[in-house]
């Protein structure tokens, strides 16, 4: 693992040099049994930012965010919509008072995200690629 971690740290260093805050390889996942094969970037934007929360199968999508503290959430929105966390927060703040559209659920840990995806029929989440196991299906990944 030390070999890997060393590689990773080099990679991370490279990524840091090349991408700034790119820390990890984020992927969007659903329950492998949900029947959803792929989601486009636009579909993911619609689901996570509250425009259209239906999966291609017709099931209502239930998105969940990674914890605020981790770098993953920022990484995700950066990759998805080229937005800062602050911008995303501001966005939700505008919608907060009208109350019609809610932000995705807020997970307290990465494992809670995984649990939400596996536990709900329309669950959609994002993980670091390494955390995505066989129970989930990667429906969108961001090419470097």
């Amino acid at each position, binding site marked *: 693992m030390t070999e890997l971690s060393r590689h990773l740290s080099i990679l991370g260093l490279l990524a840091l040099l090349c991408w700034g805050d790119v820390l990890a390889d984020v992927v969007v996942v659903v329950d492998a049994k949900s029947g959803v094969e792929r989601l486009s970037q*636009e579909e993911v*934007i619609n689901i996570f*930012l*509250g*425009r259209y929360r239906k999966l291609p199968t017709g099931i209502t999508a239930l998105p969940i965010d990674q914890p605020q503290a981790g770098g993953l959430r920022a990484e995700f929105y950066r990759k*998805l*919509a*080229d*937005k800062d966390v602050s911008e995303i927060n*501001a*966005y939700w703040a*505008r*919608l907060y008072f*009208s109350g*019609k*559209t809610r932000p995705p659920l807020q997970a307290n840990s990465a494992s809670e995200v995984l649990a939400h995806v596996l536990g709900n029929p329309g669950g959609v989440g994002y993980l670091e690629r390494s955390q995505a196991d066989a129970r989930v299906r990667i429906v969108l990944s961001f090419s470097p």
Partner: protein
Amino acid sequence: MATRKFSISPLMHISTQGIVFRSVLITLAAFIVASLGAIGFTAYSTGERANLVIETRLNQLLDTVQSTVKTACFVGDHDLAREVAQGLLSNSEVLQVTIMAGESILADEFRRGASLHAGQASSAALTRKINSPFVTDQIIGEVRLIPNPEVIDHIRQADISLAAKQLTWQLALVSIVIITALILFFVRPISRMSLALHKMDPTAGERLEMPQGHARTEIGLLVSSVNQLADNLVSAIDASREARTVAETASRAKSAFLANMSHEIRTPMNGIVGMANILRRLGVSPEQERCLDTLDTSAQHLLSVINDVLDLSKIEAGKFTLEEIPFSVESLVAHVAAILAEPAKAKGVSLLVELGEVHGNLVGDPTRLQQALLNYVSNAVKFTEAGSVTLRISILEESTESATLRFEVEDSGIGITPEAMARLFCAFEQADNSMTRKYGGTGLGLAITRRLAELMGGDAGAFSTVGVGSTFWFTAKLKKGEALGVEPDASVDVEAELRKCHAGRRILVVDDEPINLEIARMQLADVDLLVDTAENGAKAVALASCNSYAAIFMDMQMPELNGIEATQQIRQLPGYRDTPIIAMTANAFAEDKVQCLAAGMNDFLTKPLYPENLFAVLLRLLNRPGR
């Protein structure tokens, strides 16, 4: 001259007719036209500007709400969209806000109380496409803002009023500049020049001063031209003065010639008339009497010609002065009628007098009035073969001080053609040259009558029908006078009176012409007076100093010592202070008479001497009160 004090401020020269006023008027008119154009253009362009201002403002508003609108459109949030729309409406520039997400209307808010004119609004509407907040190229909706036309109007009006204000100030400034410039460069130098010109005496060599700094301007040119004109004027005046001197010299020569002629003719005339009279007194046969009558008539005619020529030349030279003595119109007319009664009767023409309401005494020159009237009446008698001559006198105007009289002489004579009428009153003209041969006359009578009437403040004229007769008239303005004193009693026999009271008294007659001396001696001896004679003034003075004379007849032009000087010396002799000295001269000009009286003479007789005149004057002077 140009440096004279100007008490009047130059601004006072802005009269309603002045250059400054007119220029300002034209400037104002031009400016008003230009201003109307400018305001019109401003109104047009300011509309564009107002639209631009509104558009910019609306764009700014849209910029501030853009991300919220994006959000609302992205999620299709009606409430949020409405909230944004209402926020936009809180700006007065916005009339209506429509927010669309795709095909669906999220919000459509409209300002309350504003009226929307569809065409106007849609033309100025601002539409902005709304992109997805997350996918840059994706258009997810649009916002449509309709600006408030009231605000646009407000901006336009503000712009127009600003433009108008600017124009007003410009106008005021330009006017002030123009007025100042005009006054400085135009009005002041011109009015100074005009004032200087007013006081300039070009004949004294004065010229206009060149206004400072105007040497090359139009005003300088004007000044030069005026000075040039003054030069020309002065030389013209000099030339005319010279011409006048020449003319005056010529006129004096003419007068002197006339006086000389008059004198030269009167002297021999005195001989003719005097001798005829003496002959008549000596007793003649009837045939000789007729010859003497003819001689008398011829002499009278010759004398009247001389008198006419002399009168006319005096009138034309302006040397004619009228006497102002009280007289009666009745006796004047009666006298004229009496003079012509005989010739009229001889021709079988009746002479009628119509003396209207005219009476009382007037002040004027009866001798000249009589002369004027006689000219008419004698003409009328002359040119009338049968019928009548009517002498008519009427009053045209009357006031307390004066009366204008009209004298009219109507005849039933041959009449005058209109062509001849035109030339009638001109000197040396008769109706026809053949007239002179048939009727005689100098042709000066009518001219003299007209001149006399003019001198008396009136006029003269005539109207006539050929073959029916003519009417000649003249008017004269005469002063009213007090009642006449006792008129000389014509009934007194002067000769008898002289014989009775003064027979044997000694008279001195002074003349260088022996014929004249002889005539005077004979005439005076006829009334039993003793006569001494002297051929010149010096001898007269010598005789007067040895003898005592009751009266002296004195010729004027004599060798050695003339009449004037002799009189002055005789007056110095003891006992001669009041002795009657009577001038006896062929000089018939009024100034001669004045000169004689000034030298101390008592009266003035014109040659040729008629015994009746001579005796009348002598009797009057000898019988003077106080002697």
